[in-house]
């Protein structure tokens, strides 16, 4: 390991050390003062974020080409660390209230983020797989952390079994690609395909298997069936983290792998990805209409949003549009992360100790009793639909532009039509909040209030000045 190696992974090394130490320090913190652990975990994330930001604009390849630090990884890692901070902020009061507060909760979030960050920096399929396991295993435990609750246990075991299953797909895909090209490094795979030395059929089969594996992770149709059950069963604070963090990591890996390892078979893969994107949007949005439980509705909504982001991959086939597609994709991830954390914070505010208060009907009367919270929820629902003045609209705008430029008119049409369908169930929440009588009970907890308040402000303000954020996303290029 030389200095460049060390520097390329510096934030990850710091965060790993921090979370391992946190696990030990937490042993000596009194059970009633686990708030200290939360603060320490957040401090670790903030420190790592500072280090990541200090590396902005640099490109370093480390560990003999196994990992890379570039604009893309810096951007994605910052977003991941932000998700981690939000995950701690929504979890702090909630896990105390539900009686599942343990110091390990925070360490597990940190460990998972380490895996996600490694995913964004991977430059070799083996590293991708290691990172996938590193981010997944803490998430399985987190999903089942409410182990006195059968639903949480069910969510954990379901997530674990399907995660292990999808991990198998990724490994088999990696093996086939290695068999065809003789390497697991992205650059060498791309070179081998470009020179025509590789067996195209084997490469395609391998790429398809890797796509299936990550399709499970991000909840793309037809690999989405675990999503509603796991999202509903897991403690809501964990669901919030899963919805944002795991999705960001999964998509960043997909973008990296398909842009740098398989650029020459993109023409073959793009139509497949376009069909998957279309199916994901249709299934997610149509299934969400019938949901009565807000967690399930948001689970289907997260499937639908995975479909929107997948549209960006359809544009990969055109090398001139590749960078635009990537920046549109990660811009949408930012918009989705901000909006979804805000929404989940409000869901957590209405959730009762025994898991009640999760029906969409329970939001009746919120507009009268808690006007500010209802206003924030309105903003998030508008943003998820894609109605101005919210970040969701800007994100969709960039995505649709790329898709249209890539000549996938039918895909853009399906995207717009399904967005219209989604307006029905998102706006229904707003209608219930303002038009129906009810006495919703909410929990006032300062960090939750901060989360939904700050996210609502960000959703609106960033949508008014999207250019600077998009410029940053456009600078997040893969080297």
């Amino acid at each position: 390991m030389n200095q460049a190696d060390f520097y390329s992974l510096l934030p990850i090394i710091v965060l790993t050390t921090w979370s391992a130490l946190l696990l030990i320090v937490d042993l000596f913190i009194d059970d009633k003062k686990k708030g200290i652990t939360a603060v320490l975990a957040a401090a670790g994330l903030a420190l790592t974020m500072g280090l990541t930001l200090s590396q902005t604009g640099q490109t370093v390849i480390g560990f003999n080409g196994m990992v890379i630090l570039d604009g893309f990884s810096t951007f994605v890692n910052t977003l991941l660390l932000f998700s981690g901070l939000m995950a701690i902020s929504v979890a702090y009061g909630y896990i105390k209230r539900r009686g599942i507060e343990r110091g390990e909760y925070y360490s597990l979030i940190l460990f998972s983020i380490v895996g996600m960050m490694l995913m964004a920096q991977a430059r070799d399929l083996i590293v991708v797989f290691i990172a996938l396991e590193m981010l997944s295993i803490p998430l399985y435990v987190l999903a089942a952390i409410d182990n006195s609750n059968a639903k949480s246990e069910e969510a954990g075991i379901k997530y674990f079994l399907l995660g292990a299953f999808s991990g198998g797909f990724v490994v088999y895909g990696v093996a086939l690609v290695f068999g065809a090209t003789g390497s697991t490094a992205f650059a060498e795979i791309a070179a081998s395909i470009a020179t025509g030395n590789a067996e195209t059929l084997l490469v395609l089969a391998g790429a398809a298997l890797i796509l299936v594996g990550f399709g499970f992770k991000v909840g793309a149709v037809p690999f989405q069936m675990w999503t509603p059950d796991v999202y509903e069963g897991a403690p809501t604070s964990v669901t919030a983290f899963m919805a944002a963090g795991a999705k960001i990591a999964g998509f960043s890996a997909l973008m990296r792998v398909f842009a740098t390892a398989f650029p020459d078979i993109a023409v073959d893969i793009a139509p497949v990805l376009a069909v998957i994107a279309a199916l994901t949007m249709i299934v997610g949005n149509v299934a969400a209409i019938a949901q009565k439980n807000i967690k399930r509705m948001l689970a289907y909504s997260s499937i639908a949003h995975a479909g929107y982001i997948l549209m960006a991959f359809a544009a990969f086939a055109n090398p001139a549009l590749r960078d635009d597609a990537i920046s549109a994709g990660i811009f949408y991830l930012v918009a989705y992360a901000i909006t979804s954390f805000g929404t989940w914070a409000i869901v957590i505010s209405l959730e009762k100790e025994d898991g009640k208060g999760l029906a969409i009907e329970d939001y009746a009367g919120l507009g009268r009793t808690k006007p500010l919270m209802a206003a924030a929820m309105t903003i998030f629902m508008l943003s998820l639909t894609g109605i101005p003045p919210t970040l969701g609209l800007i994100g969709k705008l960039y995505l649709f532009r790329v898709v249209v430029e890539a000549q996938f008119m039918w895909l853009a049409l399906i995207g717009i039509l399904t967005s219209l369908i989604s307006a029905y169930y998102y706006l229904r929440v707003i209608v219930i909040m303002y038009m129906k009588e009810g006495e919703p009970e909410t929990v006032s907890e300062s960090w939750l209030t901060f989360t939904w308040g700050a996210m609502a402000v960000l959703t609106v303000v960033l949508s008014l000045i999207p250019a600077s954020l998009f410029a940053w996303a456009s600078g997040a290029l893969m080297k």
Partner: protein
Amino acid sequence: MGSQTPWVYVGIFVLVGLFIPIAAIAIATFLGPKKPNAIKQSTYECGIETVGDSWIQFKAQYYIFALVFLIFDVETVFLFPWAVSLNSLGIFAVFEGIIFILILLAGLIYAWKKGMLEWA
């Protein structure tokens, strides 16, 4: 035949390997006298009569020990080549090894403090 020849021997070997146990079991079935009684039917040598159903939840207390053992077992596997080639690896490897041991030590402290090493 040519290069196929060795595989013929494997095939013959498999057939013979299947034939011998089948023949032994078949001969014993046809020729062996059958005079069962209560003592002959009882559990033979390997323990006592079972009580109740064996499809129950067992309290596998020792799984934590198994996990902790596994960690240190793997540690030994890595430390052995490290110790053998320490001279050629230099000072960097010494620190690398120490960090590795420290990480595992943190795991041990964690398990210890959580009371995982107590049997009760």
